């Protein structure tokens, strides 16, 4: 991964992140966030996490943010535009962000292990292949490619099947919750909108 790409995508991620906060129009915020997430997905991919990177785009950019956009458009919020900025909160937020960043920078300054580069940590796929029990994964590792999604799936289903079920149940509960929340009272008085 060339360094220039890292800087490019980090810049995209952060600048559009700032855009989310700064933009007056919620639609602009949402689109900024989409761009920010796309940059983030690229960073994931730069870390050899292809599956997570794709998932980031698929779930966040493709589904979650569409929902956001949808809600913003349906509710047709205009009130926020043109309203005066509250300088107290703006300063407070900025202060927090700066303090936090400085703090992170200080902590990272003391973090010696963090100075490892990707070159120091090259993947040793041969070693991984010898440790793998599943044949398809072993073959691909031996070929020299990283079967990212397969390894991910193997970890999920082999090590954390119970957690996976729980998350499935959570999603179901979420679905039911949304249906209940968004269902209007048929018996009650009709809303005038």
């Amino acid at each position, binding site marked *: 991964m060339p360094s220039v790409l890292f800087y490019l995508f980090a810049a995209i991620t*952060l600048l559009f992140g700032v855009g989310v906060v700064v933009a007056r129009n919620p639609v602009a915020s949402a689109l900024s966030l989409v761009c920010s997430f796309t940059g983030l997905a690229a*960073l994931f991919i730069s870390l050899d996490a292809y599956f997570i990177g794709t998932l980031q785009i698929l779930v966040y950019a493709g589904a979650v943010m569409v929902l956001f956009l949808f*809600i913003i458009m349906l509710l047709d919020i205009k009130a926020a535009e043109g309203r005066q900025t509250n300088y107290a909160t703006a300063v407070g937020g900025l202060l927090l962000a700066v303090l936090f960043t400085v703090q992170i920078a200080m902590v990272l300054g003391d973090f010696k292990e963090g100075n490892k580069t990707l070159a120091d*940590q090259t993947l*040793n796929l041969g070693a991984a292949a010898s440790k793998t029990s599943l044949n398809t994964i072993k073959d691909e590792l031996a070929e020299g490619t990283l079967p990212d999604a397969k390894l991910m799936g193997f970890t999920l289903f082999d090590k954390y099947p119970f957690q996976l079920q729980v998350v499935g149940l959570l999603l179901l509960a979420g679905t039911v919750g949304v249906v209940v*929340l968004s269902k209007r009272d048929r018996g009650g008085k009709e809303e005038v909108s």
Partner: protein
Amino acid sequence: MITLNDYLLVAGILFAIGLAGVVVRRNIIVIYMCLEMMLSAANLTLVAFSRFHLVDGAPDYAAQSLVFFTITVAAAEVAVGLAIIVALFRAKQSVDVESVTKLKG
């Protein structure tokens, strides 16, 4: 070359931006987006650590599994949260957090 710290710094800044956003913005939907941003920042640290902490020569997929779960839960949370926001909007005709201070002491 790019070090682990670089990734962590990016994640930290992204988190800080999200935090600032939650403090600064009053539109509840934007606040929600900023929350998502903070979650994603956490995900970035996880993935970075996963890549820089090799297990048998391959990235540590336990960390990535955690990211997977985070994304799943975040998706569920967004769905429910947005439904709540819609309900709120129906009740208040506003998505400004200043308009929902009923529960103050």
